[in-house]
Each structure stands twice: as C-alpha cells, then as structure tokens.
C-alpha cells in the first residue's frame, strides 16, 4: 500500500496536511504490527480508526504520539509538535487535585486561569480542588479531556478514551467531545472499537486489519447522525469490513 494508491482525502484549499505518514512500519520481535502505512490528515479533520484487537491501531496512535521509541520500524511521520494524548484510562496523578492535573506540564503564565476555564468547559467548574479518588470514572475522564484540550493542541490523539465508561456516560462524553472539538478545531485521531462512535463523531473512518488500512471512507452525513437514514448502511459496511455480522 503506497500513498498514490490512496486518495489523500484533503478538502480543497486547506494547504499542507496536518499529519502525514509515509511507509510507516513497526515490528514487535520481528512480527509486523504496522505494515507500510501511508496516510494524510487534513488540518482540523476528525479521523476515527477502528479495528479488531491486535490490528495495530494503538501502535499507530503511539507512533504519532512519539511514545514508541525502542520499537523497531521505519517510515516517515510528520505531526505537529503541539499534540496531546487522551488515554483510555484517565491517567490522573492521584496526588494532584483536578486543577493541578489539568495544568500538569503546562508552561504558561496564565496556566491556572486556563485550567479553570478548561474544567468549566467539561462541566467540572467548582471541582478544581477535588482529588481524583473522589471523582467518578466519567468525571476523571472529563478531567483528562480538559488536560488534553487546555494545551490547545493542533493534534489530539485519543486512544479508546471512552472504552472504560458505562454506556450512558459514553453518550454524554460523545456530545462533550464533539462540542469541544468544534470549538478548538484540532486535527483528531480517535482510536476506537465502537463503530457507532466512529460514525457518530468522525469526518473520516479508517478500518485497520493486520497492520494495514483496508478501508478509508469519508463520512458525509449531517449531524445528528444517528437520525440519518444512511447511518445504518455505513454501519453495516464497516462491520462487514471488520468481519462482523449484526444478526440479532
């Protein structure tokens, strides 16, 4: 799979790609987990990456995050320096309160002010002093979301950020994330297991299998997408690409 075989999927008139991968390969003890992946993300594009466990989607995200040093591989990756990662676990430091966690590592004179604003954005105004242990799973993940957005990243890398949340909390988080992404306009890579989540949120869905991108499809549905008649068609198509039939 090389770059020319794939349409770059850049909207017209947007200048150079925000993220670009050329021939990116990663191997763990000789076994290829990513094979020759070439991709371009347009600035501000919301890309969802779905795939079965072990398909290589987290490896791709970690490569973009620069968290895979020591992993064998080759290829060229160009990503913005100001990027932030939203992990599956909220990864809050238990000895820092909510506000301190949000501004963790943020070097700015107005860090405190921005941190408070970011907490308010995720609906946690007034909980600045709360210890992570005193927050529910959903609240912890909202603090983590505030932590990734307070840096005003040009690239947000989200690794199954809602995977550990209950179904109701997940729906609320979708709305919250969608609203905040519209406001901040970063380029987003959302790695997920959840086909519905991918279609609901993303401009473009990638399906990964055995280290290769096997489907690269724009989502041109109006919001709210669950009400769109073509939602089901796209869902069936993506599930089929993942080798799942929705029989029940």
């Amino acid at each position: 799979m090389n770059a020319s075989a794939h349409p770059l999927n850049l909207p017209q008139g947007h200048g150079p790609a925000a993220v670009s991968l050329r021939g990116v390969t990663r191997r763990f003890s000789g076994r290829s987990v990513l094979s020759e992946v070439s991709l371009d993300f347009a600035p501000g594009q919301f890309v969802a990456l779905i795939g079965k466990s072990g398909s290589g989607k987290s490896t791709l995200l970690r490569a973009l995050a620069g968290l895979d040093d020591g992993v064998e591989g080759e290829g060229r990756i160009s990503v913005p320096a100001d990027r932030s990662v939203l992990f599956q676990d909220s990864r809050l430091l238990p000895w820092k309160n909510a506000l301190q966690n949000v501004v963790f590592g943020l070097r700015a004179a107005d860090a405190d002010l921005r941190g408070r604003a970011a907490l308010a954005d995720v609906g946690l105004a007034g909980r600045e002093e709360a210890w992570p242990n005193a927050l529910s799973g959903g609240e912890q993940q909202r603090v983590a979301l505030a932590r990734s957005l307070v840096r005003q990243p040009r690239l947000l890398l989200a690794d199954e950020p809602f995977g550990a949340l209950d179904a109701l909390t997940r729906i609320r988080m979708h709305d919250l994330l969608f609203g905040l992404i519209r406001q901040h306009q970063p380029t987003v890579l959302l790695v997920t297991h959840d086909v519905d989540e991918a279609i609901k949120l993303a401009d473009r869905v990638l399906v990964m299998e055995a280290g290769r991108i096997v489907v690269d499809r724009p989502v041109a549905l109006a919001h709210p997408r669950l009400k769109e008649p073509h939602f089901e068609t796209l869902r069936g198509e993506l599930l089929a690409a993942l080798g799942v039939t929705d029989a029940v």
Partner: protein
Amino acid sequence: MSLITYATGLQPRAEADERSAGRQAPRPPQLAPSRLPPGGILFGPIALVAIWELASSTGWLSPKFLAAPSTAVLTGIDLLSNGTLAEHFLASAQRAYLGLGIGVAIGLAMALAAGLSRIGEASLDGLVQIKRAVPTLALIPLAILWLGIGEAMKIALIASSVLVPIYINTHAALRGIDIRHVELARSVGLSRGAFLREVALPGALPGFFTGLRLAVTTCWTALVVLEQINTTEGIGYLMNRARDYGQTDVIVVGLAIYAILGLGSDFAVRFWERRALSYRNAFAS
C-alpha cells in the same frame, strides 16, 4: 405428600411463618472474622496487666521476680516527681531521634541516588543489601574501636540501622513508578527536573512512609541495646542500675517507657502519613 397435608392442616399459618422467620436460610458459616470494635485491640494488654496484678497481690508473683503493675506505677510517679525520669528520658530521646534524623537523611539520599540513576544504583544498592544482612549489633565492636564508647558510636549505630528500612522502601517505591505516569509525563513534554518533583517523588512518598514507620521502631530497638554500654544517663542506664539493686519496679517502668515511646513514635508517623497522603482517603460519593 401426607406429611405436607399434616403440617398445613394442623398449623395453617405455619408455612407462612416458616418462610418469614422460621425457615430462614441457615446462617452461612462465618468464613472471615468480623472487624473489632474500636479499642478492641486493648483487650489483650489490659487482660495481661489484670492477671499480673492479681498474681502479685495474691503473693504468687514475688516482687523479686517481677514487681506488680501498681508498684511500678507508684515508682514511675515517684521518679517523675523527683526529676530523675525526665533527665534519663531526655537523654534517651535525644540519642534516638538524633540517630533517626541522621539515618533518615542518609537513607533517603542513598535511595534517591540509587532510584534515579544507574550509576547510583550500581554503587549503592549492593552495599545496602550487604549492610542489611549484617546485624547492627555485630558492628558494635568495630564501632567502639573507631568511635570510642561515647555518644558518637551510639548515634552512628542507630543511624546505620535506621537507614536500611528507609533506603529499601523508598528505593523500591522509586523503582516501581507507574510506567503509565512516565508516558503521560512524556506526552505533556515534562522536563526531567519537573518529572522528579511532580511525579517521581510524590509517587515514592508512600514507600518512604512505610520505611519511616519501620525506622522509628528500629531506632528504639537499637537504643535499648546501645544504652547497656557505658552510659550514665538514659532509660537503659536506669534499667541496668535497677538490675544491680534488684529493683524490678524500676525495670518495669523502663520497659513501659520504651513501649510508650515506640507506640507514640509510630502513632506520630501514621498521623503525618495520613495528612501527607490525604488524597488516598478521598472516595467517590
């Protein structure tokens, strides 16, 4: 069939009663003991003192063998009111806490050096493990030859026994830093200095406190032995002299003071630990 007819016929309400109360599921066997009520752990010590007092007052326990608790209390009040106890107590406390302070400082410095750098670990870890295998008391002869039989030797030995638990626990905590936190720190572009301050040290604090709780006990244990050597003041001296005169009541007072100091130090460290690690006690409502 006939049995059922018989039971319901004779006692029409029996079946309903049986369900609500009489035929409750049998109490499952209690697999784990339930929690003690507050102060429950005091039962054993109080019972021991009561039996001891009873044995003394009936004459079964001779005061030459062991003084009665009540006699020891009176002796303690006596020693307290004439100032003897305060003088010896201060001498002991000074030794123990000076040794503790120095030992904690050295143990902590070594743990940081070994936990945060490879050269530090290569140089120090093996040494501390060897030191750990050698009982402190076995070092007394050498320490006396090097430092004499005065205070310096005693404090040095207390410090050297205290630094082991501090080092072991703090070092283990530093080595066991959550790799996910390291990853997070990298993803937000934290500098090495900030990583130490904001992630490594707070993360190692629980380990340090575990070490400190062991260290306060260790420092009193070392003190007891060292105060048998060439001292003219201190709780240990008081007890040794009492042995020469056969004053079992003074010996009991000395033992009680060691117990109170040990428990008091442990309590103080736990109190400090609870405050410093208060974030652990917060729970989601």
